[in-house]
């Protein structure tokens, strides 16, 4: 097993998937000759040629619309949206077309496509390059939303997304690209979608989160261990549809639940997770469900101290974990 960065693991998944299946192709802004602004698709065009690694115009609606058509005709497009917040012009294609093809055609048609998009902050990207926009998409049946938290998961889940027969939004945390490194299985490594994963075992509190926050929560849990508390950490991995069974099990285990997201608090994904726990785990709860999230302000600021104030980090999670542990 090779030790790869989160970014390398994603690239590895693309290589393996394109080698395995000729129907898989990549499209997006600067993904070909440049290899992508983050270099995720570097080397792909050299290996698979211009017909399978397409540089597109700056038109997200076009990128996704093209993908929907190709997917309905039997291809497996993997579209890249350069930054997650750029996806908004394509929302009609995603929500109205891609997500509803199967339903609208009574199962005659489907759209096996993946839309990759780097999300999240902490990289001095300010307004247009720091947002978490997953909450816009996590209430659309027909669409799957996936966020990996480790290099191995990034590879396995991306391969799983490419093999999935319906549209998948695949959010990659851009700060994680080169920050996270880990052992990644070689060759075909697929993780089925829709399954959450316990990343750390503990019996004092349960932390449920996703994306880069999983890594931060694990760091915080190691610090919390010194106080004598063990945190269970559940990585949601697939944000839509949620793995309710795993959420209920993890929440019931300790009865003390902390939900973490980098997104703005109100109406975020963890609000839904909280509702699931509230509905199913009342008699197993030992403390109020706690949420830790970004403030309800329009965007992550550029100024570093202000960005730190907004951005999630291990210290913030640790403090909240300790509060919950001592409740």
């Amino acid at each position: 097993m090779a030790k790869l960065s989160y970014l390398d693991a994603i690239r590895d998944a693309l290589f393996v998937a394109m080698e395995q299946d000729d129907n898989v192709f990549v499209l997006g802004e600067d993904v070909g000759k440049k290899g992508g602004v983050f270099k995720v698709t570097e080397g792909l065009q050299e290996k698979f040629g211009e017909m399978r690694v397409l540089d597109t115009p700056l038109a997200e609606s076009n990128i996704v619309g093209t993908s929907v058509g190709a997917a309905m005709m039997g291809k497996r497009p993997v579209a890249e949206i350069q930054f997650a917040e750029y996806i908004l012009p394509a929302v009609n294609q995603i929500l109205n077309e891609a997500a509803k093809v199967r339903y609208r055609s009574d199962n005659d048609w489907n759209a096996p496509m993946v839309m990759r998009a780097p999300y999240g902050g902490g990289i001095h990207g300010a307004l247009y390059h720091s947002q978490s926009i997953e909450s816009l998409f996590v209430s659309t049946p027909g669409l799957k939303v996936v966020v990996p938290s480790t290099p191995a998961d990034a590879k396995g889940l991306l391969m799983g997304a490419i093999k999935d027969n319906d549209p998948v939004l695949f959010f990659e945390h851009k700060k994680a690209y080169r920050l996270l490194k880990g052992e990644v299985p070689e060759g075909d490594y697929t993780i089925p979608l829709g399954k959450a994963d316990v990343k750390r075992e503990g019996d004092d509190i349960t932390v449920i989160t996703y994306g880069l926050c999983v890594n931060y929560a694990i760091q915080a849990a190691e610090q919390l261990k010194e106080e004598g508390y063990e945190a269970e950490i559940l990585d949601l991995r697939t944000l839509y549809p949620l793995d309710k069974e795993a959420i209920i099990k993890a929440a019931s285990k300790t009865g003390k639940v902390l939900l973490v997201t980098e997104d703005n608090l109100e109406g975020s994904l963890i609000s839904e997770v909280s509702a699931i726990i509230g509905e199913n785990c009342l008699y197993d709860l030992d403390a109020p469900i706690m949420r830790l999230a970004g403030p309800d302000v329009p965007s992550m600021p550029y100024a570093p101290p202000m960005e730190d104030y907004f951005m999630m980090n291990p210290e913030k999670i640790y403090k909240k974990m300790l509060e919950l542990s001592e409740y």
Partner: protein
Amino acid sequence: MTEITMPKLGESVTEGTIENWLVKVGDHVSEYDPVCEVNTAKVTAEVPSVHDGVITEILVQEGETVDVGAPIYKIEVDGDASADETADSNNDEAQTEAPVKNEQPAMPKQQGDRRLSPVVMRLIGEHNINIDELDGSGFNGRITKKDVEKYLADGPVKKAEPVQQTAVKPEPVQAPKAKSSNESGESIKVSGIRKEIAKRMVQSKTEIPHAWLMMEVDATNLVNLRNKHKAAFKEKEGYNLTFFSFFVKAVSEVLKDYPILNSSWDGDTITVHDDINLSIAVANEDKLFVPVIKNADERSLTGIAKSISTLANKARTNKLTGDDMAGGTFTVNNTGAFGSVQSMGIINQPQVAILQVESIVKKPVFIGDMLAARHMVNLCLSIDHRVLDGLVAGDFLKAVKEKIENLDPDAVSVY
């Protein structure tokens, strides 16, 4: 921050019950402002603040009993926010715990948060756990799921001196918890004084073999005498010349001849007291006090009437002190005041007898072969049969009867 401890409210008082908090956390108090009412062995006393400052924490809840010297509240003394004061309060030990950092998520040992989380509620129900046996390790002493799991795994935590607690337990006050068949109705929180009364009464009634006798006394002379002087006395002295004063006076005199009734029972010894200190029962709304007329035998009738008046007023305004209540050797109870004609008093431990003075009722009585309208009164005596027998009790009662009956209705003075 200064910790204030339970004051010692009288000799031999070892504990006190917080009856009432007169302040709450955050209140500013000045020195000598009353902070709480403390009840010790039947006295309720207001505890004044010894500092100017802000109350920061109340450590003992209303109704809780703590030892003298135990911390009862904390106060932030004005101009002393830095909290390094050690000298002031009267318990230096409690203060020597190193200055704790404020952020330290306190692990208060007092019974704190008694709210139960859903999972704790479910677990104690499923396993039939008495939550009083659980120690809360959570914030403010909250009982956590972990605490319950630990309890289930390890069994009950050994609390301090559980043996003593159970040994003292057989207070039958608790025992007859017969459930009322009627569930509806108001429930009244039992106050500290009520609890004290209940405890004493149960103790007296269960420990003392009470025997009881009653004599009917012709109080016609008394009524005439008193009526003759009543108005003038009131005008001159400012308080009433009551019938009860005459009975108290008579009892104090007769007790000199029957000292065994003026004694106490200690199990191994019977102590006959030199002083004749008469307890008189005074009721105040829902409370019963038994203040004492000290050396009643040395007082004139006026002196006794005055003592009764003073003590009764103090009782009604909650001003009785420990001294007012201490040292009684025999009790005279004015049951006639509320119209009773016959009653069986419960002896006020460790005394050995109690005399109930009933209502004076005018009725037809044979004197010789003639019927006459006379003012009659029943005197009811309860005695501790461990100490007293019927003969001496009868002699005592007869002597009181004679004193009352032989009052001279034509006496020119009651002084």
